[in-house]
């Protein structure tokens, strides 16, 4: 069903024939009218970031810190424009305060994409340690989160999670696992 929906979308949107993980994420954002995408850069996210910059539908730009990006999309939501934040695992680790003091208590449907480092071939000990803090933080605030490992599940999980975040006015974290993206390995 998810694949069928994606194929329908691909007939109307230019570039939608892209079945890469980043192509599916971009099209799902667009279909859900998420047009504001601040990010803190990440090597694995680079093709997605490049394609967002190339598509005039999106306003996308780097921020100095992840919490700054959370502030921006929270303000945009209140002003009637949908956004999502892109970051890496270590960036998520800087967000506990803004999640607990802005996104959750003010009921902001904060949509986060986290490129997962620290597992499945990590070469930096610090990254592997900080990765272990991510899910406990999400769980401690009872936040919805999904770890996406399969390309054939990506569109379904992403599309449904965005819709759930908006309708329940609650944040969601979509964790892009190396099984999906290839991750970052020592020889890259």
């Amino acid at each position, binding site marked *: 069903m998810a694949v069928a929906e994606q194929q329908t979308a691909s007939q109307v949107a230019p570039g939608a024939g892209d079945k890469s993980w980043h192509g599916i994420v971009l099209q799902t954002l667009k279909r859900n009218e998420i047009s504001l995408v601040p990010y803190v850069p990440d090597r694995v996210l680079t093709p997605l970031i490049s394609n967002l910059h190339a598509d005039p539908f999106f306003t996308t730009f780097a*921020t100095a*810190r992840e919490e*700054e990006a959370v502030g921006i999309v929270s303000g945009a939501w*209140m*002003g*009637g424009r949908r956004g999502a934040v892109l970051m890496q695992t270590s960036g998520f680790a800087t967000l506990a305060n803004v999640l607990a003091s*802005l996104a959750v208590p*003010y009921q902001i449907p904060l949509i986060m994409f986290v490129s997962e480092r620290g597992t499945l071939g990590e070469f930096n000990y610090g990254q592997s340690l900080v990765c272990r803090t991510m899910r406990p933080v999400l769980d401690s605030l009872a936040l919805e989160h999904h770890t996406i490992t399969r390309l054939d599940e990506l569109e379904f999980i992403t599309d449904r999670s965005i819709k759930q975040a908006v309708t329940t006015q609650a944040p969601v974290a979509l964790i892009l696992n190396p099984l999906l993206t290839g991750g970052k390995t020592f020889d890259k």
Partner: protein
Amino acid sequence: MDTRNTKVMNRFDVTSRLIGKLKHEEAVIGGIGNTNFDLWAAGHRPQNFYMLGSMGLAFPIALGVALAQPDRRVFALEGDGSLLMQLGALSTIATLKPKNLIMIVMDNGIYQITGAQPTPAASVADIVAIATGSGLANSAWAADEEDFERLVEEAMSAVEPHLIAVRIDDKPGVGTTRRDPVQIRERFMHGLGVREPL
């Protein structure tokens, strides 16, 4: 540029003067603590948003509102301690150049609400110089209350973001915002025309 040549004003007075100038349902984002306490005390408006945490994010939140509603002027009120926590936001705003965003920094050189510990703005850090160096060319100290009002009027019709820094005294806020985050957010969205009440 020398901040010591500027008059030391009062946050509640300056905030009240700003609110008095708003005639077009401009949005106002009040930073954590005394900054939004005085915004609250100046009289609640449906277009006011009050932060109850997330120190340093008044400018980013205001940037988001400004990007969502480019035809509405958006003001953000922030303290010097809060701004020093999130200086990168200045260069982000300078890069995007939203024409409708006006940043106001209430600089008392102290973390007033936590016990008046000094911030670097009291001695070595110049907020306007930092903003200018971050790429915000339209940044200025308000010399006195009349100059503040003149700078606000100038920013009202500007085509680039403006930052106005105000040296203020060490007085605490004169009110206390009602700490109801969901209601604050919902009423703000009503005030911005995004939603209708149930």
